[in-house]
């Protein structure tokens, strides 16, 4: 009875086939059910937001220490140390085992002598000082205008930072996360160069003194511009509002104003030694507005002119006091 056996096998084959087809249809239906998105809202990408710690990275304010430490001299290492010592010493700002982010201004591919970027010797001195205080890791990071590698190499900052024991963090597309800055006018949510800040305990800004056509002066407060990504080129539409927002965004542990050179015109790019004059000064402070105001008056030599509007706007938010003359300033001569 070969026929019967054949029919039995055919039946089995048919049932198997039908089972597979029914199973596949059921699985497809279940998958469609699970993925179903009736109004198109589910399909939108969830954007995680980052927030910096409450109170930022600032240290407890001191009633007795001077607001500004100003060191004048020729030797960057001694000046940085003296200026930081004047506001309490590095031990006040960095504890053993800290992860410290140092933010220089490396916006352009320029030789250090042209004054468009932070002096690498100042970066070296600062990183060494931070290492000396027992920092576990020092990260030097900036998001430049020109190509990052070239900026860090040509400015000499990469070499100085690495020789002093820091790690340079160059930005790449995936290193940015949306930062929430509660209360900011313009940058309440903005792409932020987040990678160097993962697990960071302290943030120190170190910025050169530069002329700037639109906002008049670029120093330690505007320096935080380099931590943002995205459509930064819209910032000029209210540059003073933006700089005030930047001060709100980043409450640093310490700022160091690198007045070893002053780019007094054709800023913030410069490009000629004729645009630069020696400043021979380092200013350290926990208040970037005070440090910048000192730079405006004493280093850019514009004390006759009113401060650019961003000072008042940031000060009105309680983010610092640009009236440095009313505060204690410790001025020392170092090397």
């Amino acid at each position: 009875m070969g026929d019967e056996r054949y029919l039995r096998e055919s039946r089995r084959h048919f049932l198997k086939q039908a089972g597979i087809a029914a199973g596949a249809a059921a699985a497809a239906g279940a998958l469609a059910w699970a993925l179903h998105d009736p109004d198109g809202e589910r399909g939108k990408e969830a954007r995680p937001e980052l927030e910096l710690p409450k109170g930022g990275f600032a240290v407890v304010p001191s009633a007795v220490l001077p607001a500004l430490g100003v060191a004048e001299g020729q030797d960057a290492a001694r000046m940085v140390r003296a200026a930081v010592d004047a506001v309490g010493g590095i031990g006040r700002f960095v504890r053993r085992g800290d992860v410290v982010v140092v933010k220089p201004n490396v916006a352009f591919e320029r030789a250090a002598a042209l004054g468009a970027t932070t002096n690498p010797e100042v970066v070296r001195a600062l990183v060494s000082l931070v290492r000396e205080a027992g920092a576990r890791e020092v990260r030097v990071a900036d998001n430049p205008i020109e190509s990052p590698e070239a900026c860090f190499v040509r400015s000499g900052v990469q070499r100085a930072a690495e020789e002093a024991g820091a790690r340079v963090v160059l930005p790449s597309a995936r290193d940015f996360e949306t930062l929430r800055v509660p209360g900011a006018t313009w940058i309440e949510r903005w792409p932020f160069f987040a990678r160097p800040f993962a697990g960071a305990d302290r943030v120190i800004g170190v910025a050169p003194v530069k002329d700037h056509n639109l906002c008049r002066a670029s120093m330690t407060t505007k320096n935080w511009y380099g931590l943002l990504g995205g459509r930064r080129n819209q910032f000029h539409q209210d540059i003073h509002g933006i700089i005030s927002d930047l001060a709100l965004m980043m409450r640093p542990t310490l700022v160091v104003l690198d007045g070893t050179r002053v780019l007094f015109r054709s800023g913030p790019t410069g490009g000629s030694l004729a645009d630069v004059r020696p400043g021979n000064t380092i200013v350290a402070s926990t208040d970037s507005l005070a440090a910048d105001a000192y730079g405006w008056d004493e280093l850019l030599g514009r004390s006759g002119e009113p401060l650019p509007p961003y000072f008042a706007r940031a000060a009105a938010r309680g983010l610092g006091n640009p009236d440095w003359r009313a505060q204690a300033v410790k001025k020392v001569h170092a090397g």
Partner: protein
Amino acid sequence: MGSTLVTPGWVRRRLAPNPDGSPWWARAFRATRVRVVSQAFFFSLFVFLVWCTWFSRLRGYPVSLFLEVDPLVGVATAIANHTVYRWLWRGLLVFIPTLLLGRAFCNWMCPYGTLHQLVGWLFNVWTNRDNMSRNRYRPAYQIKYLVLAVFLVLAALGSLQVGLLDPICLLVRTFATAIAPAADLAHVNLAAALRTRLGMDPEPLLLLSSAPGALEQRVFRGAWFVGAMIVGLVGMNLVIPRFFCRVLCPLGALLGVLSRWSLFRIDRDLAKCTDCDLCLRRCEGASDPHQALRKSECFVCMNCIDDCPEGALSFRLERLPVKDRVLGDLAKGTATLFGEKVISRVPDTVRAAPAVPRRRWLFAVAGGMLAFPFLRLSAAVNKRGFSPKAIRPPGSVEEAAFLERCIKCDQCIRVCPTNVLQPATLAPAGLEGLWTPVMNFAIGFCQLNCTLCSEVCPTGAIQKTPLDRKLGLGPYAEKGPISIGTAFFDRGRCLPWAMETPCVVCEEVCPVTPKAIGTYDEEITRWDGKRVLLKRPYVRPELCIGCGICEHECPVVDSAAVYVTAVGETRSIERSLLLEATRKAKEGT
């Protein structure tokens, strides 16, 4: 006895001596094995040099080495502009193995050839019989010689087009504009996944990146076509093995013409050959080693020697054809050669010259002579009808000379740190300028202190340019900086000009000093009646170098309110803008 008991059979078979009595290791040191090692070495070297063609990796490596030793590049540029630029004499180095061994370059050194062979081998699903028929010579394999002739005639007339199909140019271009960015996309996603999913530090993965420190994923205009071209050409190996090498490669054709004079070749021993044709099974060049060897087609891969069951094939010093020395009757099997019985029925052993009839050479020459006016009179890249967006990198020689030199290898595009250099599509430069470098300021900008493109250019289309020359400093102060174009404002799109909104990002980023973009302070009565002070930008053309950072940083991103066009470029009198510049240029010449 004891050892045979403990040694497994497969080990004993591996260690068994050869039938001819030579020890087992003689099998491992066959010429074909050495060839594979050589191919792996040169392919790795090629990838390494592409990987190195980047700001932080250059370190003095000869990153354009493969392009420099490519004799077609040297020969064609010498024909076009009567000079041998910088390192192009290295092309002579490849003449040595070619005149000695034949087209060994194709199967021992050429990275593109290696890629074709590898893909053909991986996806070979044919039977031996199929393989043997696919590896026979076909008349279509003449095409490469005609391609070569067209290219050389075009070069002589002043249009260098070898780069369209030269395998090294083609492969460098493909790596630069298609493979490297694709690898970066994969690497960035992999790094992000490692960091977010596994919490690992993806720093070591940066080694995989083709462009470390580049802020954004690099993009290249028309990369899809370059990518499709390599997939198509390499994919053709599934239809005809070594399709590109056998049919299209102009470098292979040049080496084929030369290799007719090579001192060594594959030789067939008529007294041993049984005409089984097994030598065709893996013949890379389709050079007919089973009958009269086509010397100019043979890639010297040595596979036929391995495959010959009779040991009839050898690689040896060239000797005269033996056809006329055969005595007796081949058909009756009574033929002898130098006293030995001839077994093969095919007495021819060699055919030196490429099998291209003279009239076809003439046809190709005529084709080249017609192609030149067709291309050049399309007016895409010339004094008249030039595209305002054909902005060449700083240091480029003037356009006619540029077209005599640029081989479209896209090394400059690979090394450009800001991604501003883009392979020209048909729009800015026509077919003649296809894949030559032009700037796209929506994508990047020409970084002031960067001259990398001029460093890596193998042919001097972008002349080696010291930074002082680019910036007009030191000994070049008299000449002034190199300008590649001029910036213009579109006041209808500019925020301070048209929209009562402060901006002047362009002025901030203008890198020259004094700045080529200045601002007027103008007080206006705004729409709401308020008096506001606006800074409104303008250009000082005598200071503008056309770097395009203003256009790149302009917040009107889709079609910038400040934009650069090629007029005012230093290299061209025709495209000068200011009377002063023309006077200077005329003095210089």
